[in-house]
């Protein structure tokens, strides 16, 4: 998969410093985003999805410490870049859409002001050109009357509209990679479908790649080419959508699929769940991270850390059972 990747994360480990000791948010995470593809990251809350996406764009919180690994964007290590280099990267080559559209736009500035302002690097462009470009970007994400809407303030838009605006702002610089951190979690189901539809359409147009983060398996299956399953800060399984949804090899992936409400066809009083809790990220066991909750765990799982086992060239799972 290493061939032509926009983003390639190699053995990334990130700790958060806390009064109780370092929290191991990501441990030796590796993944690739091939050019022109949509890669989905699935995981429970606290599995490190957002940490991974923020690390990719170099915006980790101050108390985060990178313990090792690389984030290669087009071959250059984002983690080793200085501020000017990072700023050059952000917005133009890589940008991000956040979870909550209600808070991701500045409430005191009109949408147009914000969209014009972010084009500050195009010095050759006059204000009128920038405005035209901003209006075009809004039209592209399906906002009618774009020209008039530029003078409106964020509170005058609905949540779905705001998320479209946030996406339009992200795409303004024609980035090669758009990171979407749960862009539909704060929206209702109808809007969610619209945003997904929009992302799929945009991908055809703007020819970039998308790193799509979600905990909704249905969306991932709908939108993505590749899927990365994150559990407690580790990549437990990755592969194409077909691999993951039809031939899951890691017990966690299997359990996730069983628990997905959309896939349950039997009427039962109780929804299936995975018993147990996500392990405490303060002290990680030397064994398999999923072993305490795994229905298929055996002695080896509790003593020995499994390696990534490649399966059929496109899939890999971090499980002792995936050897065959």
């Amino acid at each position, binding site marked *: 998969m290493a061939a032509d990747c926009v983003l390639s994360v190699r053995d990334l480990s990130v700790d958060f410093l806390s009064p109780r000791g370092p929290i191991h948010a990501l441990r030796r995470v590796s993944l690739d985003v091939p050019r022109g593809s949509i890669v989905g990251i699935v995981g429970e809350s606290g599995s490190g999805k957002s940490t991974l996406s923020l690390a990719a*764009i170099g*915006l980790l919180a101050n108390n985060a410490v990178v313990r090792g690994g690389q984030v290669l964007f087009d071959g250059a290590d984002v983690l080793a870049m200085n*501020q000017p280099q990072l*700023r*050059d*990267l*952000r*917005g*133009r080559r890589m*940008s*991000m859409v*956040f*979870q*909550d559209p209600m*808070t*991701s*736009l*500045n*409430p*005191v*500035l009109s949408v147009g002001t*914000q969209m014009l*302002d*972010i084009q*500050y*690097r195009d010095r050759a462009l006059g204000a009128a050109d920038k405005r035209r470009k901003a209006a075009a970007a809004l039209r592209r994400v399906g906002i009618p009357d774009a020209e008039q809407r530029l003078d409106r*303030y964020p*509170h*005058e838009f609905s949540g779905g509209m705001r998320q479209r605006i*946030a996406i339009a*702002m*992200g795409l*303004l*610089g024609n980035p090669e990679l758009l*990171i979407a951190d749960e862009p539909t979690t704060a929206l209702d189901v109808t809007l969610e479908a619209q945003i997904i539809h929009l992302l799929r359409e945009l991908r055809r147009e703007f020819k970039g790649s998308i790193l799509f983060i979600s905990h909704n398996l249905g969306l991932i299956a709908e939108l993505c080419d590749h899927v990365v399953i994150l559990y407690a800060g580790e990549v437990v399984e990755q592969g194409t959508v077909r691999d993951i949804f039809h031939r899951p090899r890691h017990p966690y992936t299997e359990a996730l699929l069983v628990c997905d409400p959309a896939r349950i066809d039997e009427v039962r009083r109780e929804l299936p769940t995975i018993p147990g809790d996500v392990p405490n990220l303060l002290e990680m066991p030397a064994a398999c991270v999923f072993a305490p909750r795994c229905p298929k765990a055996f002695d080896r799982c509790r003593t020995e850390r499994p390696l990534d086992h490649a399966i059929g060239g496109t899939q890999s799972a971090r499980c002792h059972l995936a050897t065959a």
Partner: protein
Amino acid sequence: MSAQLSEIAVRATAASEAGISGGWLLRRLRSDPLGLLGLSLVLIVVFCGLFADWITPYDPFKINVPDRVMPPSLAHLLGTDKVGRDIFSRVLKGSQIALFVGVTSIVISQLIGLTLGLIAGYAPRWLDNFLLLIFDSIYSFPTVMLGLTVMTLLGPSLQTLMFVVVVIQTPGYGRLVRTATLAKMNSEYILAERSLGAGAIRILARHVLPNIIGPLFILGSMDIPSVITLEAGLTYLGMGIPPPAPSWGRILSEGYDAIREAPWIVVAGGIPLIITTLGFTFLGEALRDLIDPKLRKVV
């Protein structure tokens, strides 16, 4: 006072998030009698201050011994003082001094406080702590004692007085701006803006500043009377603006010397202070309440 600061900051931020404009505030103010009274009083004082040199019936500095210590009459609306100067003219001229000291020193301390506050809110922890230490040290001095000490050391003059006011006022604004900046820096749109490639100065100037300018403005309008009172107080104690400038504090202290023979002088020096203080306070409180979204729904 700092509890008040953060309260105003919270309310004004909420207001700015609800998208309140200046026009809206003015329209709202019309239905608030106390706020309207405050606005009128402030406008009267500002009018006197701006046009003092044209509307004073007499030269406020002209000594006219034959007409000394005259009680209020049609010729001298507020009477004359011990050397025969027209007190009404001196009160009008005094509003110029009061406003100049009040507004200028507030603006200067707000500019300094804004800069230091933005730096403290954005800078690394050690610099933030250092600036906070300075703010808190100044805060911990009793205002009048600090004023008297500095005025004694440097000698009373208009410049020294304004220097004292700026030193006393700056920490409050610095803390307000720092808190607001910290709150803003943690908001998601700042993160979003950074993910699009905005740098520190762009974020502070375009995204943080517009969010904190509102509370700063309101706080400033509420601080003007306390600065004017401080100026009058120091001048009254002989440590403010030196004579013959007709500061209201000077009129008060001269009136105090002659309180038995000419009680109207003290009254004439005190009334404008009361008017100004009430005006700015009513106006400031009305503005503060108007931008409170909770009160807004009830109205």
